């Protein structure tokens, strides 16, 4: 297995995010969320460009023969187009053979774990040997900079993972869950087919008594309800998955959480009495990158630390709501340096 990541070159420092907000508000939010800075794409860069750059780096660093790639899965909720699937566009851009199986997964924050499970299953069943799992998000284009509750949280990034089938890796276990009764906790209300785009849906409106503004085509999040959901479901799912595999939390070398905010992760770590030295974090420098946050945390913080066999427990949760726990052995995982992208190209 090998991994690479690409982020936009532009750094947005939250303490300097004062075009709309006062210095006082900016400082307070940084203190409370732990998010110092994020990366924002320019208008010429999409999630696919971040993943393309990460994949080219992955291929170069690992001498991958493109003819041997049999499967490409692209994870994103910020695709290039509504149609066609971005994975197919990437198949062409990367110069992969036409018999490459290519499709998108559109799911949100837990999608990388869902994606790993899907790719592992497909490979196992069909005898495939090499796959690329790409995950990219440009959440900076989704939320309104005038909505205080979301303006400081989200960032952009893209990752590429090479997955190979080999007995040496051993068994992985995934717990994948969904609760559509909470579909309205995190949502972009318009722009799909339930409420189609119109002149009204793109207009930013004041949406609460504090003067926060967003349009119906920008995302919202009910923070309190999301937090309630996370503290109830996530520890329980981790405990159930551990019981199923007959492992204990101390058996793991690293525990990687979705990077939603410091507060949630600290609370879960405290509630489950986790060893915080085993829990890497990238919220400070990338913010919440949705499904990219688990893999980008691995690339950013575990480079050089995954030689030999390492047991990782990953936990991700979010929009849907969906949540997932993954227990995956990493064997000699080679991680590339993170690269930067501007105007759609690696720089």
């Amino acid at each position, binding site marked *: 297995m090998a991994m690479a990541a690409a982020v936009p070159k532009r750094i947005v420092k939250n303490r300097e995010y004062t075009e709309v907000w006062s210095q006082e508000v900016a400082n307070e939010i940084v203190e409370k969320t732990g998010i110092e800075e994020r990366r924002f794409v320019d208008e010429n860069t999409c999630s696919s460009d971040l993943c393309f750059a990460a994949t080219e780096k992955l291929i170069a660093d690992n001498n991958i023969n493109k003819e041997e790639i049999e499967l490409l899965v692209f994870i994103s909720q910020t695709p290039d187009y509504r149609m066609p699937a971005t994975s197919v566009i990437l198949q062409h851009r990367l110069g992969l053979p036409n018999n490459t199986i290519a499709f998108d997964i559109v799911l949100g924050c837990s999608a990388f774990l869902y994606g790993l499970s899907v790719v592992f299953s497909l490979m196992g069943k069909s005898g495939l040997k090499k796959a690329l799992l790409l995950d990219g998000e440009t959440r900076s284009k989704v939320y309104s900079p005038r909505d205080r509750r979301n303006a400081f949280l989200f960032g952009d990034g893209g990752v590429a993972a090479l997955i190979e089938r080999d007995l040496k890796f051993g068994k992985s276990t995934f717990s994948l869950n969904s609760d559509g009764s909470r579909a309205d906790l995190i949502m972009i209300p318009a722009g799909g087919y339930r409420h189609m785009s119109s002149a009204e849906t793109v207009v930013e409106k004041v949406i609460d008594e504090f003067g926060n503004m967003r349009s119906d085509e920008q995302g919202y999040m*009910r*923070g309190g*309800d999301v937090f*309630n959901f996370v*503290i109830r479901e996530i520890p329980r799912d981790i405990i159930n998955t551990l019981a199923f595999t007959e492992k204990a939390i101390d058996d793991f070398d690293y525990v990687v959480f979705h990077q939603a905010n410091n*507060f949630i992760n600290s*609370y879960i770590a405290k509630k489950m009495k986790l060893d915080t030295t085993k829990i890497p974090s990238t919220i400070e420098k990338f913010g919440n990158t949705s499904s990219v946050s688990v893999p980008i945390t691995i690339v950013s913080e575990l480079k050089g630390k995954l030689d030999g066999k390492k047991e990782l427990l990953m936990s991700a949760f979010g929009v849907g709501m969906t949540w997932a726990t993954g227990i995956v052995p990493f064997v000699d995982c080679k991680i590339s340096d993170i690269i930067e992208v501007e105007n759609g190209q690696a720089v």
Partner: protein
Amino acid sequence: MQKFIELLKEALEREDEVRMEDNFREYDEWSSIAYLSIIAFMDDQYDTQVEEADFKKLKTVQDLYNACTNK
């Protein structure tokens, strides 16, 4: 009730007095993270969850206390 007041002061990071009739949203220390801290101790100490829509209806410290203790 004393324990509740202590937990609330900790969640708010407030050292000044907390009275049952206070409107907690008017405290200087009130913020969206204070809100999450309150949800956290309600879950952890009182095994109580309050949906955001219902939480909006809670106004005073007394209301919060009632939510934790009358289940």
